């Protein structure tokens, strides 16, 4: 348990999204989950990256301005979006065939907790008090098991200062052992077979600072850098 709330000042949600945008390779197909992941789209306009909207669209464009809103053109967060040259539409079933079939190069997802083994808990907060098997699963479980690479975008701790990066997840799992990279307001951490590798830290934040708000022991990279934006 972390005893102080928000010990360190790190990146904004927008800059977490920017760091992730820099991680994406040109020519890749990417799905962005609800929350911080959605903000990644603001940083890739004009790049050679195709976004998927899981309800059945490839090459999703930027959010629609009020006068461009089409009821039949929304993203998975139910926001009105626009199309781009080369956009295509298909059924939800085809969309998840694509996701499970391994066609998403990267899924960027939010998380409530991530374990040092790469387990992801993101769909259900038990504090809401619903029966354990009931909640908004959405597309997260399929994306977590289907995407070639899973990047987590989240704040490093809860609003109460609790660990979100943990030895074991205590919340209901989305999937086991699927997370490849964790990008938070404080750090960029790679999930490796040997454990969590701390690769980058936010400006003004040390490796020790990050460790103090991370439950499992971090391996500090020999090439530890400040997060490059």
């Amino acid at each position, binding site marked *: 348990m972390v005893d102080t709330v928000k010990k360190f000042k790190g990146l904004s949600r927008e800059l977490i999204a920017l760091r992730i945008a820099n991680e994406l390779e040109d020519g890749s197909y990417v799905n962005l989950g609800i929350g911080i992941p959605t903000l990644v789209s603001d940083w890739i306009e004009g790049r050679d990256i195709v976004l998927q909207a899981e309800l059945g669209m490839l090459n999703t464009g930027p959010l629609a301005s009020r006068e461009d809103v089409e009821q039949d053109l929304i993203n998975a967060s139910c926001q009105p979006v626009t199309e781009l040259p080369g956009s295509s539409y298909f059924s939800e*079933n085809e969309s*998840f065939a694509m996701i499970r079939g391994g066609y998403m190069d990267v899924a960027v997802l939010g998380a409530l907790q991530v374990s040092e083994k790469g387990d992801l808990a993101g769909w259900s907060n038990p504090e809401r008090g619903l029966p354990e098997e009931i*909640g908004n*699963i959405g597309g997260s479980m399929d994306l977590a098991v289907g995407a070639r690479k899973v990047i987590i975008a989240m704040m490093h701790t809860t609003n109460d200062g609790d660990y979100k990066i943990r030895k074991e997840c205590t919340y209901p799992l989305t999937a086991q052992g699927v997370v490849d990279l964790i990008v938070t307001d404080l750090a960029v951490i790679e999930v490796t077979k040997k454990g969590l590798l701390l690769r980058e830290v936010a400006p003004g934040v040390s490796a020790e600072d990050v460790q103090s708000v991370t439950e499992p022991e971090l391996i500090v990279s020999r090439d530890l850098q400040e997060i490059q934006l």
Partner: protein
Amino acid sequence: MDKVYPDVDSVIADIPDGASIAIAGFFTAGTPIPLIQGLARQGAKDLTLICMQMGPGNEDIAQLFMNGQVKKAICNYPFYRSASRGANSPVEKAVRNGEVEMEVYPMGTFTEKLRAAGAGIAAFYTPTGVGTVVEGGKEKRKFGNREYLLETALKPDYSFVYAQKGDRMGNLTCHKTARNYNPEMAAAGKITIAAVENLVEIGEIDGDTVHIPGIYVQRVVKVDRPNYFPTID
């Protein structure tokens, strides 16, 4: 073949108490709202609703719960994102109070269960949900180095679908992201009822652009496009 009914009330008149009904649409997009509103008027009870959402972005579904018409919900994203907003929602209340039974599936599994029913596939092995509460008592099996869950087909008595355009034989075309669950739910339903915004004559739809072949559609009704604005928070 002319599958057109004169109005919403006649096209759903025979739905009995206890029926299972799949309702297409991703939150708002491609949802056959006039049919859901008709179902509220028609009054059938003890229904099993098979629908991605159960309220957020879709107040008309929530109304069926408030009317006490729903016995069971099979879904994917039933609640508002916000816990505080959810606490006041009739759907979430009904689930908390045990008045409604609810099964939640991952989105890909949910749609694949319907697809399997339409395609004559009894069951399939998916990697989604392994190691999670979704496992429940399901069979888990290894193929290659990976584990998969056995999920079975889900066949609704009725399916409600929405199309931008439909002809009298039931050939349908959908528009952009309003396609979503419509094709697979149309194939899954024992009786599929299509609400179409534009009813056209047979031959007006280019056969290469049909998204839902008429063989899957037993009834067609012309509706006015409902006006809605999305929100799921």
